[in-house]
C-alpha cells in the first residue's frame, strides 16, 4: 500500500517542486498529481473554471506555500475577548491543516495584537511570502469608521485602512485573501481591492457598526464539512463565503431581527482559492501508482465537466444517461483509490 505523506512533509519539499514547475509546459494537457499548477501551466480561464476542486487541490499543494495571519483585535469586554480568541484558535487550526505547518500560521490576539505587533507580522509576511505563494489574512474583532477612515480596533492605537493597505500591498504573493470580519469592515473593502486579491468584508459599509457574527460562521465553514457543497473535503473561498453569509442571514432571521451586517466580497476566482482541507483532502502522496489514479480522476472530471456543459442541449433522459456513465467511472476509480489510500479512522 502506498504510504500517504502528510501535508507538512510535502510543503517542506516545496523547493523541489518549485524547481519542477519551472519545467512545465505552458499548457498542461495531461495533468499529473505531482506537477500541475494553474499558475505555471497558465490554464485558460475557461478551462480553469471547469477544473474540479480536487484538481486545484493538487495544484496548490505542489507549487507554493500558503501563509496565514490571524489577527484578533481588541474585544473591549471579556465576552468579546473570549469569543474572538476562540474564533482565532479555530481559524488557526484550520490554517495549520491547510498550510501543513505551524510555521506558516501566525496568530496575534489579545495584548499581543497591538499596532506594532500587527505591523511587524505583516512585514514579516511580506518578507517571507514569494510571488507564487498564497496569503490569507483574517481580521477578527471590532472595527470603526469615522466617516472617512476605517480603523481596526487594537490595544493601544488602532490601524487605519490605508495603513493596512500599505502593509498588504507590500506582500508579493499573487494570491491573497483578506477576510475582514470586523464591524464597519465594508468601509475598507474598496481601499484594499487589488488584482490577485480577494477581499471579504463582514459588512456592506462603514455604517454597519454593530459587533458582527460573520467570523463565527466563517470559522465554522473552515472547521466543519458543512460548507463543503461538492463533498470533496476542500473548502474554497466561495463555499466558505456563501456558507457564512447564509448563516449570518439565518441567525438574524431566526431571531426576527433586522440584519445589522451584510457581507461583501470582491476579487477574482474565489472558487479556486482554497481555505481549508479536511479528511482525505488533507493528505498527499508521492506514490506514483496513486498519482496515476488521481491523474485519471482528473481526466474523468474533465469528462464530467463536458457532460455538464452539454446539459442545455440534451434531452433529460440522454443527459442523465451520459451523467450516469461518467459518474460510474468516477465512482469505480474512487473505489480503487480508496483501496490503496483508505480513509483515516478518527
Amino acid at each position, binding site marked *: 500500500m502506498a504510504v500517504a505523506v502528510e501535508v507538512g512533509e510535502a510543503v517542506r519539499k516545496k523547493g523541489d517542486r518549485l524547481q519542477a514547475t519551472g519545467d512545465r509546459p505552458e499548457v498542461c494537457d495531461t495533468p499529473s498529481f505531482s506537477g500541475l499548477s494553474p499558475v505555471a501551466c497558465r490554464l485558460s480561464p475557461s478551462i480553469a473554471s471547469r477544473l*474540479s476542486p*480536487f484538481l486545484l487541490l493538487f495544484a496548490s499543494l505542489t507549487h507554493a506555500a500558503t501563509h496565514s495571519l490571524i489577527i484578533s483585535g481588541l474585544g473591549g469586554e471579556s465576552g468579546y475577548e473570549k469569543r474572538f480568541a476562540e474564533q482565532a484558535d479555530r481559524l488557526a487550526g484550520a490554517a495549520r491543516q491547510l498550510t501543513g505547518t505551524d510555521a506558516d500560521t501566525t496568530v496575534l490576539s489579545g495584548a499581543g495584537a497591538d499596532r506594532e505587533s500587527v505591523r511587524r507580522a505583516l512585514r514579516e509576511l511580506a518578507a517571507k511570502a514569494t510571488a507564487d505563494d498564497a496569503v490569507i489574512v483574517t481580521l477578527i474583532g471590532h472595527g470603526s469608521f469615522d466617516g472617512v477612515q476605517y480603523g481596526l480596533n487594537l490595544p493601544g492605537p488602532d490601524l487605519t485602512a490605508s495603513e493596512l493597505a500599505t502593509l498588504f500591498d507590500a506582500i508579493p504573493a499573487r494570491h491573497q485573501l483578506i477576510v475582514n470580519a470586523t464591524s464597519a469592515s465594508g468601509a475598507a473593502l474598496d481601499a484594499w481591492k487589488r488584482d490577485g486579491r480577494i477581499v471579504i468584508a463582514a459588512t456592506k459599509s462603514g455604517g454597519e457598526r454593530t459587533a458582527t457574527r460573520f467570523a463565527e460562521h466563517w470559522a465554522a465553514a473552515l472547521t466543519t464539512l*458543512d*460548507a463543503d*457543497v*461538492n*463533498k*470533496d*473535503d476542500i473548502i474554497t473561498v466561495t463555499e466558505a463565503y*456563501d*456558507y457564512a453569509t*447564509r448563516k449570518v442571514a439565518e441567525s438574524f*432571521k*431566526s*431571531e*426576527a*431581527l433586522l440584519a445589522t451586517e451584510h457581507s461583501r466580497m470582491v476579487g477574482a476566482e474565489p472558487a479556486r482559492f482554497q481555505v481549508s482541507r479536511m479528511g482525505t483532502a488533507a493528505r498527499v502522496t508521492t506514490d506514483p501508482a496513486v498519482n496515476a489514479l488521481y491523474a485519471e480522476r482528473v481526466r474523468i*472530471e474533465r469528462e*464530467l465537466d463536458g457532460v*455538464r456543459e452539454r446539459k442545455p442541449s440534451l434531452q433529460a433522459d440522454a443527459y*442523465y444517461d451520459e*451523467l*450516469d456513465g461518467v*459518474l*460510474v467511472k*468516477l*465512482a*469505480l476509480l*474512487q*473505489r480503487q483509490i*480508496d483501496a490503496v489510500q483508505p480513509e483515516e479512522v478518527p
Partner: protein
Amino acid sequence: MKRIMAAKRRKDRKVGKEKKFFLWPCDLCAFLRPFVFFLALASTTVAQAIDYDPRRPDELRACDDSYYRGRDAEARECYVRLLNGPYNSVTRAEAAWRIGDLQRANRFFREAVRSNQRLIHARVRWARLYLSTHQYADAQKLLGEALELSPNDVYGRLALAQVYADRFDGEAQRLIEALLQEDDGLFEAHLLAARMALEAGRLDDADRSLDRAAKAADSKLPLLELYSARATLDLARGRDSAAMLKDPWVMRALNYNAHYGAVFESLARFEVMRRRYAEATPLLRKAIEVQPTLWSAHADLGANLLRFGEIDAARVHLQKAYEGDPYSPTTVNTLRLLDRVNEIEVTSTRFALPSTATAPAAEVELRLRLNTREAAALQPYVMEIARDSIVAFSRRYGYRPTRPLTVELYPNHDDFAVRVAALPGIGLLGVTFGDLVVMDSPSGRATGDFHWGTTLWHEMAHVFTLSMTDNRIPRWLSEGISVFEEWRTGPTPGVVITPDVIVAMREQRLLPIADLDAGFIRPQYPNQVQVSYAQAGLVCLFIEQRWGFEQLPALVRQFERETTAREAIENTLKVPAETFDREFQAFLQQRYAGVLNRFDEWRRAAQAASKAIEAERWEDAIGAARTAIEIHPEDVADDSAYLLLALASDKSGRRNEAIDALLRYRRLGGWEPAALRQLAGWLVQANRTAEATEVLAAVNYADPLDAVQHRQLGEQWLAAGRPEESLREFQVLLALDSHDPATAHFGMARALRAQGDLVASRRHLLDSLETAPHYKPAQALLLQMIEERKE
C-alpha cells in the same frame, strides 16, 4: 443544555414585551379583527358628514341644506360662492372642505387659529378635518389644545370621545356619560352612546340612546345619522340583511337624501363587525350605487372582496378609493400589498371526508397561499395541519365545509397585518374570515415566539364554529372552542394556563358567562383579553367534563339563530347562567386547588429554581423545581420548572431524570423548540431513537425552517423504515438549504429507493453527484444500483 438555556433566555426576553403572543397563539384573532377594521374605517364617520356644533357659521347653513339633501351641484355652487366671498377663514375652510379641497381647508383653519390663538371652535373643526384624513395623532393634538383653552368645550370633548371610541378605549364611555350627565340634550353624544352599545351587543341600551337622541334632535339639522343607526339596530335585532332596502329607516334616509350611501355603508360595517362578510358585499355595492363618490365604501368593498380572494375586483375598488381619498394609509397599504401578489404561490388539494352517523361522505377543497420563497418548505406541514384539523373538526362538530377553505401565511408580519387590518404593526398572529385563515408564517417571527401549528389549529376551529353559525356565534364561545381544541386535539395537547390567569382566578376577576364577551372587546385591566381566552377555553373544558363533549357542538348550534349566551347555556345545559357560573367557579377551585392555595409558595419555588440555576447550584435547583411542579404541574409556559429541572438534572449527571422532565413537559403541552431538540438529542444518545424521531418531528410545527433538523429527521425516518416521511423531510431540506443540494438529493434518492421508485431514485442520485461528484456515500449507492441492474 445550552439549548435549554437559550430557550430560557429567549423566554426572559419575551416576557413583558410579547408575552401575549406566547400565552395564546391568536391573542387578538378572529373577533377583535373586525373591530380593528372598523377603527380603520371609522375615520370617515369621524369626518362627520353632519356638523352638529351650534357654533357653525350661519352663512353655511343654506349650502349645508343642499349638501345634506344630496343636491351636490347646487351645494357645490353655494360653497364655492362662500369660498370666494368676503367671509372669515373658518367659513371658507368649511366651504373648501365640503367641495373636497382639503389642502385649502387646512390653510384656512391654520390662518384662523393663527389670527386668534384663543379660537376653540376652529381648532375642534380643524381636528375633525385631520380625522377625515386619518391623521389621528394631529387631530388629538389639536383637540388637546382646544380643551386646554376650554376644558369644558362640549364639542371638543365629543370629538375626543369619538377618537377614543374608534380605538375601543374605555375612556370613550366615561367621557360620553360625563357629557350626557351635564347635558342630556346632546344629540351627537346619544348617537355615539348608541353606536358603542351596538358594538357591544347591548341592543336595548342602543335603542334607549336613540330614543333620547331623537328627543334631543335639532329640527334644523337632518336626522340621517339617527335613521342610519336605527336601521343598524333593526339589522342587529335580526332583520334580514337582504331586506334592509325596505327597512323604514333606510327609506326615510333615502327619502331625505337619495344619494345617502352612508346608510348602507353603516349596515355593511355592522355585518363586517359580526363577521358576516358575504352579507356586507351587496350592502356596500348598494352604497356605491346610490353614492358613487363614497370613497370609504369603495375601500370597504375592496377589503371585503379580498376576504373572498377576489383580488382583481378588490383592486378596482381600492384604486377608486385611493383616487378619492389618497390620505388613507389602509388603502395605500393594501394596494401596495396587492402589487406584490405574484410573490404568492397557490396550491390546491381536494380530499374526502368519510361519512359519519349524521353526515354523508364529502369532498373538501383546501387552498394554500404561501410566499414563493418558502412555499416548498412549508407546504407539506401546513397542508397536513390544515387537513388534519378539517378531518378532526368535521368529525367532532358534525359540520362539513361547503366552500373551499383557504390558508394564507405571510413571512413578513407587516404584510400579514396589512392583509388583515390594512395597517402594519398590529399585534395579531392569525385571523379567520369565514373560509379564509390568514396568519404569520413561522419565518415572520423569531424562533420560539409562537407555535404556528397550534395557531393554525386554533384558526381552523374558528372556520368551523363561524361557518356552523353563519358567524352568529359569540366571540367567547368561538375563542373558547378554539382554545379548548388546542388543548384537546391540537399539535401540542395539554391544558396550558399561565400565571396571570391563576392571579385572575385568585382575585376573582373572571367574568360571568353572560358577560364574557366584554373581556375581549373592551378589556378593563391589562391582560384581560388573554385571561378571557383562557377563561373561555376553561368554560369549554368544564362543559366537556361536566356534561360531556357532545354538549359543546350542541351549544355552538344554539347560535344558528340569534340568541344570547344566557339563553344558549340554559337551553343546552338546562341550568341557569348563574348556576353555571357557580359550578364553573367550583370546578376551577378544585382543578387548580394546588396552585390557588399555594400560589406564593409556587412562585417562590419557581424563582428559587431559576436563581439556583443561575448560580449553578444544581441540587438546590432540582429541589425547588420539583416543589414548583408539585404545586402547579401544568405549568409549561414561560420559565417552566420542567425546563429548569431538566437542566439541573442533566448537570448533576442524572440524564434519565432530565429526559423524564422534558418528556413530561412535552406531554403537558410544552413545545419550546430548543428544549425539544435537546430532548431528541438525549433520546438518541440513550438509544431511544423512535421517541427521538417523534419528538423532533413535532418541532416542525413550531420551527419548520431549520435545515439541520430536516436532515436529521430524514435520516431517522429512513432508519426507522418510514421512507414517505423521510422523503418529505429531504424534499423540504432541498427547498430550504440551497447551499447543500447534494445531501438532500441523496436523501431523496434513498427514500425513493426504499419506496421502490427506482427511476426517480436514480435521477436524484445523479442530481446529487452532479453537484458533488466525490460524494462517497452517493458513489457507493450508484455502484450498488449498477450491480443490481446487472443482476
